[in-house]
């Protein structure tokens, strides 16, 4: 029992958990938002009608879990290491949109996504350093 606890307390495992929770919450939010989508109502721009979807509540739960594990990660791993690694979610989200949500992603959009990801890979470290000082 003790060893299993220390295994779960591994900050790298928590980092992976945090990333997976962010990914799952984004997909659930999209599913939930589409479920209740009401583009004709002006109120739906506020997103509040999203609360009527159970999927949105699951997503909120996952956001909280990811936030808690991220705070734990930051206790043990420097932001300049943890933040660039956490950006892997930017690669996983579009791929999951394509696989799980069946979104049709045009060549132009893939190119744009690729540029954003390369740019993020370049800036992740300097930005983490800036954020530490802010």
């Amino acid at each position, binding site marked *: 029992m003790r060893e299993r606890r220390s295994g779960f307390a591994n900050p790298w495992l928590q980092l992976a958990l945090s990333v997976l929770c962010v990914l799952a919450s984004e997909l659930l939010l999209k599913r939930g*938002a589409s479920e209740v989508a009401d583009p004709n109502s002006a109120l739906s721009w506020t997103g509040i009608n999203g609360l009527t979807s159970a999927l949105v509540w699951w997503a909120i739960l996952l956001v909280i879990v990811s936030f808690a594990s991220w705070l734990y990660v930051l206790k043990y791993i420097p932001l300049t290491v943890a933040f660039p690694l956490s950006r892997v979610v930017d690669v996983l989200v579009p791929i999951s949109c394509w696989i799980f949500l069946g979104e049709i992603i045009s060549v132009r959009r893939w190119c*744009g996504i690729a540029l954003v990801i390369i740019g993020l890979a370049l800036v992740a470290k300097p930005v983490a350093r800036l954020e530490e000082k802010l």
Partner: protein
Amino acid sequence: MTLLALVLILLALLTFVAGQIFLKHAMESTTQAGLQKSSVAVRLGAGILLMTISFFITLGLLQRFDLSYLYPFQGLSVIIISLIAALILKEKLSWRLMIGVLLITAGVVLVSMS
């Protein structure tokens, strides 16, 4: 994309980044001695409020757009952070940061045209 959508996307990003900075300062100030509890609570409250606003705006946007369309815009949040850092901390922005920012901007423009 309509102007309203663009404004909401940027507003969601700005409130998210501002919320994060508030939360970070609230957490940090808990470790400082001699700080009043009320100022921690104010920062925490402001952070949570801003994050909540960002969450609902995103939820509204997701009702209208693909996730693969909206998600790349989050790359702009690192640009907002660098701008804030440059303004507040008078940081010199490195070449690496500048090139990265240009790539992200170009990528977001491509996505927004798709």
